[in-house]
């Protein structure tokens, strides 16, 4: 044999529809064997079926690239065949055929094949034995837990959990064997307690951007989109790939420009682990046991005061919004109950009570939710506060909120009323102990001075960290805010 070798490799094909991998059950040829086109090379089991793979080449087997029992991804070469000396004509009829048979009835289909199967021309045929389930590969547990006991980890597909049968799926979604094993193991939740992967929304991005992100190794789920409706754009991916967005992602937003140290804090960029960090941030919000209390109040007087104040010269041109009153009331009430303006320091085993209030305002922006805060709002006059709120809102809407504007908040207001809803159960901004939701102001029938009158009514909802704030304190704080808003004159008593 002096002919130079012409090596061809056969890649594991997708033998079903949309399969991603297959297990090589056994090799039917060995190195050195001469094979013809369509001669079965190996038996492969996929999530759908066990099939024999026929050779696309005639030649000599020079290498088997995987051992039997290996799970191989579709598209991976599995065998090398030297086709240089191949004298076997292409497309020789490999399968058993009746043509040459003197007894046609017996010969057309049949003939023993390895594995207790019958050769059915090409591929596979019925077993001569009763159907039996193949042993799963070693990584999968021999005895998967029954599905019913794992309600917290529902399978992607209803696959057969019992040992006797396997799922027969025709068409539809095929998630592959790994996902199936994954579901059976019930280990889909990351070990660090991050939220369940399937419970989260798929990040929005167009396919070209997805591919671009995949090529660059950027994890879309860690990004916040800047496109319409929060869609992740190519520019967002570029920003993430260059690292400038990595630490911003930590705070759940994308700012412009690179972050700068603010307030004497040191900012350490966390690269490559954005997903974990983001997940941990969500997890931290659930570390603090939340309690939410509700209060419905008549704010007719506040609305009247608002009209009078708007006419005052020192507030001329200012936006005197209901939010301004809520902010002012919260600041006054927080002064009376300083414990609500605190944070839990787990490491130091201390409660940090702050004598300044950095008032966070949750703002819906084209880029998603951001929570900038008004620094030292507690010392501001009503006019200063109005100016600060207006500026903060304007900056957020323009999508120009700087990272430092979002850092260091101590207590937050979320104005769900602007969306026309009555109330909600807000989740604490991480590191803070209280958040107030302010609902829509509606004209409602209300008992006023003993008679049912149309009054302007709203709802407040206060969520607080029960580790720091007891029900009594939370209730008093909320009641004070309510009293200030329903009777603004009582502010004189604070």
């Amino acid at each position, binding site marked *: 044999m002096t002919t130079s070798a012409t090596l061809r490799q056969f890649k594991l094909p997708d033998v079903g529809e949309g399969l991603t991998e297959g297990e090589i059950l056994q090799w039917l040829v060995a190195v050195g064997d001469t094979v013809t*086109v369509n001669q079965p090379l190996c038996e492969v089991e996929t999530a*759908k079926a066990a099939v024999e793979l026929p050779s*696309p080449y005639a030649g000599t087997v020079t290498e088997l690239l995987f051992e039997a029992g290996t799970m191989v991804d579709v598209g991976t070469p599995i065998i090398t065949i030297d086709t240089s000396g191949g004298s076997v004509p292409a497309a020789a009829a490999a399968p058993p055929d009746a043509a*040459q048979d003197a007894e046609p*009835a017996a010969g*057309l289909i049949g003939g023993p094949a390895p594995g207790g199967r019958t050769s059915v021309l090409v591929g596979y*045929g019925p077993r001569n034995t009763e*159907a039996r389930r193949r042993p799963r590969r070693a990584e999968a547990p021999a005895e998967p837990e029954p599905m019913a006991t794992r309600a917290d980890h529902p399978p992607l597909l209803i696959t057969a959990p019992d040992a006797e049968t396997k799922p027969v799926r025709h068409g539809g979604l095929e998630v592959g064997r790994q996902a199936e094993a994954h579901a059976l193991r019930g280990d889909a939740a990351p070990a660090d307690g991050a939220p369940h992967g399937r419970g989260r929304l798929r990040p929005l991005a167009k396919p070209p951007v997805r591919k671009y992100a995949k090529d660059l190794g950027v994890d879309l789920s860690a990004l916040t989109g800047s496109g319409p409706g929060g869609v992740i754009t*190519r520019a967002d991916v570029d920003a993430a790939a260059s690292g400038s967005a990595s630490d911003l992602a930590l705070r759940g937003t994308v700012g412009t420009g690179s972050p700068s140290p603010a307030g004497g804090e040191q900012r350490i960029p966390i690269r490559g682990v954005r997903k974990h960090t983001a997940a941990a941030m969500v997890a931290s919000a659930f570390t603090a046991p939340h309690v939410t209390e509700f209060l419905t109040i008549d704010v007719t007087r506040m609305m009247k005061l608002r009209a009078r104040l708007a006419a005052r010269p020192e507030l001329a041109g200012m936006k005197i919004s209901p939010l301004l009153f809520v902010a002012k009331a919260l600041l006054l009430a927080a002064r009376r109950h300083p414990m609500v303006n605190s944070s839990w320091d787990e490491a130091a085993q201390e409660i940090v009570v702050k004598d300044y209030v950095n008032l966070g305002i949750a703002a819906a922006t084209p880029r998603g939710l951001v929570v900038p805060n008004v620094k030292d709002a507690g010392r501001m006059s009503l006019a200063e506060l109005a100016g600060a709120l207006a500026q903060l809102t304007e900056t957020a809407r323009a999508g120009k909120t700087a990272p430092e504007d979002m850092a260091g908040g101590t207590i937050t207001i979320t104005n769900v009323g602007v969306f026309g809803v009555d109330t909600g159960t807000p989740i604490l901004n991480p590191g803070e102990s209280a958040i107030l939701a302010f609902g829509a102001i509606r004209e409602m029938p209300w008992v006023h001075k003993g008679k049912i009158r149309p009054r302007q009514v709203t709802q407040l909802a206060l969520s607080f960290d029960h580790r720091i704030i007891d029900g009594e304190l939370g209730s008093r704080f909320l009641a004070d805010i309510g009293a200030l808003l329903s009777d603004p004159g009582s502010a004189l008593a604070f």
Partner: protein
Amino acid sequence: MTALRQAAEVVDPVPGAGAPHLPQQPDLIQLLTPEGERVEHPDYSLDISDDELRGLYRDLALVRRWDVEATALQRQGELGIWASLLGQEAAQVGAGRALRADDMAFPTYREHGVAWTRGVDPLQVMGLFRGVDNGGWDPAALGFNLYTIVIGAQCLHATGYAMGVQRDGAESAVLAFLGDGATSQGEVNEAMIFAASFAAPVVFFCQNNQYAISVPIERQARVPLFKRAAGFGFPGVRVDGNDVLAVLAVTRAALQAAREGQGPTFIEAFTYRMGAHTTSDDPTRYRLASELEEWKLRDPIARLKAHLSRSGIADAAFFDSVDAEGDELAARIRQGTVEMPDPEPTEMFDHVFAEQTPELAAQRAEFVEYHASFEGEK
């Protein structure tokens, strides 16, 4: 007595999953026994020349060889999927050869044997399963519609076409193909009602291959399928689907009746899908090996071969030449399939309308732009 008979009739299990006994099947029209013995039937005679018999054998063998190669090509990653006709060659070739040139056939996605008889190039069928086009043949020129993937939908198309033939005053017939599973579909029943009401020149040719993917026929039909035709008001017959001669004779007669204005006929070609539903299916999960063994004894090609050999109509040299021709065909199919170029993505806009509409042109431009965005900067 009568009640007992009726009950027995109603629950008459259609053989398939259990132990089928073809010769005992009532109303099964047969002209060639599984052993290759030529028999006569009182209602269906067939006058056929030796050349035609050899031609039928050639059709069956080449269609099977094509099917074998296509299955292998799918396993080698060259086709997205393949729906094998293994075991149903006689039903398809017999029906296809019963058509006249001016007749029209409406196939499912498995009628490779019919496509062959209508002169469709196998490579055009391969292109469909490779995913490079939607079937490139000219249905009007060949009298063979494009494959229909939607189960049973082609029965409505066929009936509508037949009503058109009727209104044209033409003397041709329409052959609608369907499977046993499709008989449970609404559109199939609607098509039969319309066909009956208008006495449309359409023949419903049902290949009962015993399984609707994995569901055995007795799970969806409590009476033999051909008996359903009576409910629609036209004749139903059950023919041995593995007997190419019987299928040819019965289909010819039904098509002729349609041409003569006698309305539709339902033909149940009783056969067996020896392979998987498609290459994505594993039949070992829902049927037993013993069942396949039973059906191997009724192989459609083997019985014709036995008949030709025994009666001296064909010799070993003939069979060898057909085998050689099969290998040549397989080589041509293999090479043609592997070398098939990928289509331009914009091609899908080109054949929607005879003349491009502004809306579609705009969509096409948008699509081009979208594809361009995969590379480089936006």
